[in-house]
């Protein structure tokens, strides 16, 4: 079985699509960071991993076990197993949390390693000042002394589907709006500066080349300002550093920052691309894979109902299909099938030896492609079933609310779903859509929703609805300042017309249609970006990093724009940007989200 799987993976590797050049460069940079850390330590290393699996996932995105082994990692332990290590270095990869710190101290206390073994602690993706300080102070510095070094490896940009870099912090909107914790914006600024470094390098000649930052929205403006400050303060350090061998890989001409909260509506709506739906229904994990029930996938009546099949989404076939609208996926799939058919058409009798050998080489690819298309067609089928049978009512209601929304009365369908105790997130998303489209619910309507939600789901649901209010996902019309969101509201009614968000004509099959992904609704965020791109970002608040004055070449070149969406981006929007705005060569965001993910990541006070 295992061998079989290995072969599968090998075959998959043939078709792997690593992503756009920009993503590849960014990965190269992060890999460089990781390896420079490992290679700086002579001799063999044991990596002790944090209990928090996300650290391992993060590192594995850039280097798997075999690649790590090539850099001298001979053993991988979990911090909780407390196995003693026999290598000269023990490298801890930890998340910067107090929990990890406790585990580390516990490890130092209990594991009887040779005192000559050097402990190197690396926090990923950043070392929180507080963690570092409390490590220093704990037990009068006993632990601190045992450690040879405490550093950070800023692996912050995680590649997503080869088309997007994500900071993978879906909590950011909630942290900002509920906890008022602005430090997350600072983290964004630091990460973005790393992006600028990838682009400009550290050498004094290029480092100071200006980089234009355009920003839209309150958060974006803050981040732009912080980036400038971060840049200024780190400048001195940069000069001390020896120049990076992998500098200047990334080619971007400007960075555009935009707030998700200019358009909180779109994530609340159901995505309708293949890719977006996969995320909505099954959830795409950090390692770019989905887990689906085995029985559902194989369409078997019996079998272990809990068995899950993990499907990796990185093959070339998937990348061709992913942006298709779920109703139009067969168009794209038939093209792939036709290609496979072409490949298979050969006349054995008339083939020369050379042609044969070419064919033999091509064979695994053909076979694998067939397998992949099969797999993804089945996934698409499952999703279609799910959408048509379970979500069609909600989607229909969403469409109705987008067209016309009445703040004065509750929507019967939403009420019915609440009475029926439909999945909470679905219901909350619909209420949110109702509220956002009508510019705030009347107090009595809101109260009615809150009351019946409480009755059907209990007080925790009420808590969530209040937090959504605080986040501005649900608003009270003319509310008297109670549970008000500090972020300015989206004015859907006006913007709908101004940005032509509901075009008369659209085609789900045409990906160049900016309304295709949401079947007739053009997301405001994409519309704003599209407009900005068209006017070359004139009129957007602009900050220049580095030397004053602008690099005329990069300034004039409309291509090479990098966007960063603060607060999350849906995969359908990503599809729209990829398909409609060729000037945007790199998409980055704080997280790739779905409505459910956004709601699930609402934080506690």
């Amino acid at each position, binding site marked *: 079985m295992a061998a079989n799987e290995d072969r599968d993976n090998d075959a998959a590797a043939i078709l792997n699509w690593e992503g756009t050049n920009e993503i590849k460069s960014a990965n190269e940079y992060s890999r460089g960071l990781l390896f420079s850390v490992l290679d700086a330590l002579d001799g063999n290393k044991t990596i002790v991993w944090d209990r928090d699996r996300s650290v391992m996932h993060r590192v594995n995105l850039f280097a798997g076990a075999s690649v790590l082994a090539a850099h001298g990692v001979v053993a991988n332990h979990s911090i909780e197993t407390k196995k003693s290590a026999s290598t000269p270095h023990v490298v801890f990869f930890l998340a910067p949390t107090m929990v990890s710190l406790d585990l580390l101290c516990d490890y130092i206390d209990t594991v009887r390693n040779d005192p000559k073994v050097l402990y190197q602690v690396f926090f990923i993706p950043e070392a929180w000042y*507080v963690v570092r300080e409390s490590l220093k102070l704990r037990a009068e510095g006993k632990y601190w002394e045992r450690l040879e070094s405490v550093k950070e490896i800023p692996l912050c940009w995680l590649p997503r589907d080869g088309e997007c870099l994500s900071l993978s912090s879906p909590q950011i909107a909630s942290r900002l709006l509920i906890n008022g914790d*602005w430090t997350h914006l600072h983290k964004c600024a630091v990460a973005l500066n790393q992006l600028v470094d990838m682009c400009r390098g550290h050498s004094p000649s290029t480092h100071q080349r200006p980089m234009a930052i355009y920003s839209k929205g309150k958060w974006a403006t*803050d981040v732009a300002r912080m980036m400038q400050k*971060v840049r200024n303060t780190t400048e001195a350090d940069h000069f001390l550093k020896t120049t990076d061998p992998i500098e200047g890989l990334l080619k971007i001409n400007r960075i555009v920052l935009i707030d998700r909260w200019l358009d909180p509506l779109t994530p609340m709506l159901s995505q309708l691309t293949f890719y977006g739906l996969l995320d909505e229904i099954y959830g795409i994990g950090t390692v770019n894979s989905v887990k689906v029930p085995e029985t559902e996938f194989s369409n078997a009546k019996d079998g272990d109902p809990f068995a899950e099949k993990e499907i990796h989404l990185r093959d070339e076939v998937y990348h061709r299909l992913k942006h298709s609208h779920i109703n139009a996926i067969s168009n794209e799939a038939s093209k792939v099938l036709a290609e496979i058919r072409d490949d298979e058409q050969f006349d054995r009798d008339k083939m020369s030896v050379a042609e044969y050998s070419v064919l033999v080489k091509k064979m695994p690819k053909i076979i694998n492609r067939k397998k992949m298309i099969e797999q993804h067609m089945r996934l698409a089928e499952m999703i279609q079933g799910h959408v048509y*049978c379970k979500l069609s009512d909600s989607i229909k209601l969403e469409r109705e609310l987008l067209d016309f929304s009445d703040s004065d009365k509750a929507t019967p369908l939403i009420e019915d779903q609440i009475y029926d105790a439909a999945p909470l997130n679905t219901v909350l998303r619909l209420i949110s859509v109702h509220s956002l489209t009508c510019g705030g619910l009347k107090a009595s309507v809101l*109260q009615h929703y809150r009351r*019946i939600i409480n009755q059907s789901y209990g*007080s925790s649901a009420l808590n969530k609805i209040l937090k959504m209010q605080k986040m501005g996902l649900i608003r009270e019309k003319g509310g008297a300042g109670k549970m008000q969101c500090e972020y300015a509201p989206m004015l859907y009614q006006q913007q709908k017309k101004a940005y032509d968000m509901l075009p008369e004509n659209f085609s789900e099959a045409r990906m160049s249609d900016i309304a295709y992904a949401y079947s007739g609704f053009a997301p405001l965020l994409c519309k704003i970006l599209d407009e900005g791109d068209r006017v070359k970002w004139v009129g957007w608040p602009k900050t220049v990093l580095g030397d004053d004055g602008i690099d005329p070449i990069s300034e004039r070149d409309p291509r090479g724009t990098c966007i960063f969406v603060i607060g999350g981006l849906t995969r359908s929007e990503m599809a729209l940007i990829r398909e409609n705005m060729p000037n945007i060569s790199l998409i980055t965001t704080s997280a790739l989200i779905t409505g459910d993910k956004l709601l699930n990541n609402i934080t506690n006070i």
Partner: protein
Amino acid sequence: MITSELIEGMKESTRTSTPSSGAKPKGDGEICLRPSSSVFLGDQQLYFTQEYLATNSLNMKYVVYFAACQFSGPIAVIYAAPKSWFIWIRTISGRILKRDLPCTDPVFIDWTRAHCLLVLSKNGRAQVLSSIGEKVSEVFFDNQVSDVHECRTFATSRGDSGIAVMDVDGQVAVVNSVSEPVIWSMRPPYSELPTAWTAFQPHSQLTHILLIFEAVFLMGCQGESLQVQNHASVWVDSSTKYVKCVVDDARSRIAMMTENGKIQVGREKVSLSLSLRETQTFFENSKSYETIQIVSIDLSTCFCTVEVTEHDIGKCINFGWVGNSVVFVQMSSSLTVFVNVSARRKPGDEVLVYEKMTANARISVEPDGIRLFESTRVEFVEAASREKIAVLNRSLNEDGAYLYKAAQEMEQGTGHNSFAASTVIQDMYKAIDDCISTACDTWQPEEQKLLLKAARFGMAYTNTTPDTTKLMRAIKEIRVLNELRMVRTGIPLTHRQYRIIGDTCIINRLIDMGSYSVAIKVAQWLGGENCESVDRVLLEWVRRSISKVSRSNMKMDQPALEALDEKISAKLLQFPHVSMADAARRAIEAKLPELARLFIRRETDDESHVAVLLQLNDVSAALTKAAASQRPQLIHQVVRHLMTSESRSSYELAISRIPLAQCLYQDLVRQEGETRGISSRQMLALLEQASDFERQTLFHFDVAEIERNPSERLNALRRAKDAAKSMGDKAIEEILNDVSAFAPLQIQRGQADMSVRDTIIEIADDTAKVAQLKQQARLNDKQVLLWTIEGLAKKGKMEQLFDLAQKRSPIGYAPFVKACVRYKRNEEVNKYFAKANGYSDLVAANLAKKNYVDAAKLAYDRRDREVLHAIHMKSHDDPVQCPRVKQLLNSMDQA
């Protein structure tokens, strides 16, 4: 016998002013760049360079004690006044660094290598002063010694100086380093005083003391007793008296001088035999010879012996080295004699002596020469380097000389001569190097230029790409040297001296002397605009300016402070890389917090700004600044500082004033609490302090969500209600009121984890309870009906359900059908399906039964495309019905 040969330099260059200043420098001590005169002393050549003219203010005439700092540093002199003594410190050019510094009973002054002036009083107290006369430290020999007889300073391997003090009893007390004085002493076995003595520290060895009692040599190092050096007897002339011994700069050789040897010492000194002794007696009283011997530092070998007959050198007043192979003997203030003591001399060679007449001369010894301070001028006597002799004298067979010639010919347009000269050169690289190093060793800028040009010219002849680093470095250094030699600076450093002490030391010396502007200039020339030395100079300047103020004990008023701040900042801002925070730290050190505050206002780097504010203990300003910088780490730093330095209530109050810091602190509390489990109360306290009722409400909700204990959960919800009330949100309060009214009963029933809906479903068969609940939880009819239906179907109370269906259902019968399908009461389904009437109820009932085609037909009949489309979507569930529904949909679209 005296071979002297004066070489006149190029006569055309007789400018006396420096090229840069244009006009003649005013005031005392005119810089003189007249070409040096020179004299050959065998294989050695001495160059005489008059450095400064008209140095009247050096005022040598009445000087009692004199000391000049090695490496062309300042000179210190002591004048005697009727009742006391006064020290004056000047640069060599005569600029006064310190005047009229009183001192008591000085017997000895000298400069240490660390640029400090050592003044030893008769009772054995040594004061260490800086070059501008500030007291640095004191060394007390008085416990160890009686009155001072003599004193020697010596260079140590660490670049500092040590002192050895001999008291009138002959005991020697020594410190190895003036900066870290630890006194140790040594007592000779004889009661009388030695005829000559010295102290020295050979390379990487302990300090040695050499005492000479006539011809008996005693030597001992620290920690050992004095030993008679018997191995010295091979060369010691036991019949005479050794009166001087001087260690050379490299600390490898000692020059000895004997006094009035009654015997002429045979040149065949190697074999000391009886017969020789007889010859010695023969020569007795015939003529008195004095000898100079050069011996190795361990006294094992004698390199050279020179007998001087012309002068009674045993009576000299000063004796020392000039470079490596020449010694000087100062006979009187008006006569100094130079003697070649080169090791290449063979026994029997002519004794090479040069006499120089001086006026009131004082002598200071440098590693590469000596400096003569006369009444009206300062002259430097330099033992020329091999390169300089070779190049400047146009010696034959010297590549450097040919290159210099060739370059000069080229300059004068006689190219053929130039070519001729250059073809003779054998090793062009050596020639270039020679020219460069000669350029460094010359004094006149014109000559320097010519030599550097020659070096550049030579590069054209090399095959490889010329390596210009040496040339560039030489140019840089010559520029510095020329600047230092200016009258205004007065450090006529030679290049060889410069190479010995190095860049940093030069800058330090300039700082010591308070010549900040020159120091900055030099630092920039040497290290570039942003080098560390520039910072150092500036900060030292700041420190001194500030400490001058703080020491003055003058109460500084605000305008005065502002003026000082203005002055210092204006300067510092010219050097953008120098941090104002450092200046502020200096101000704090000088206990001038107000000034520090003024400085820090100008600091642009947030991190240092905050750090200084914390140092000033101005926490609220630090917090505000950190918050304004929007850098989490800075805020954390301040918060941590607060947490360690102040009580909880006071720092929380301070933090709560700054929202940015507040949220960060909350995060800290939350994170630390997660592992310790104490967060909740602290967090709440913070929210209460901030009167943030919205978040308090949410906070209580969160607690309720996590809480497992039902009554605790209820309490949390009640607190949430209170918070909502404080917030003024009636609506939320109302809901929570209902919840808290409903919850206790739930707890009684043991259904605390259930929602109202779940409870109704659970108790659907109990009509009375349902009615009671309906009232308590303020449910509407539809809710109650729907949930009752579901509850009955779930529990299988089919009769009761049927009874319910008997009344006309206000919500239709589709919910009945749905509930039956959901709970698989298949036999019951049709009962209710039959009751369904009305279009929407029928469609819903059909859908619930998954009769998609029937539902579609109903919609088709009504031409209700929207519903039909929805049915079509749902029909995907059933592959059989789906195409038929699709057909209906299509046919309607076509119609």
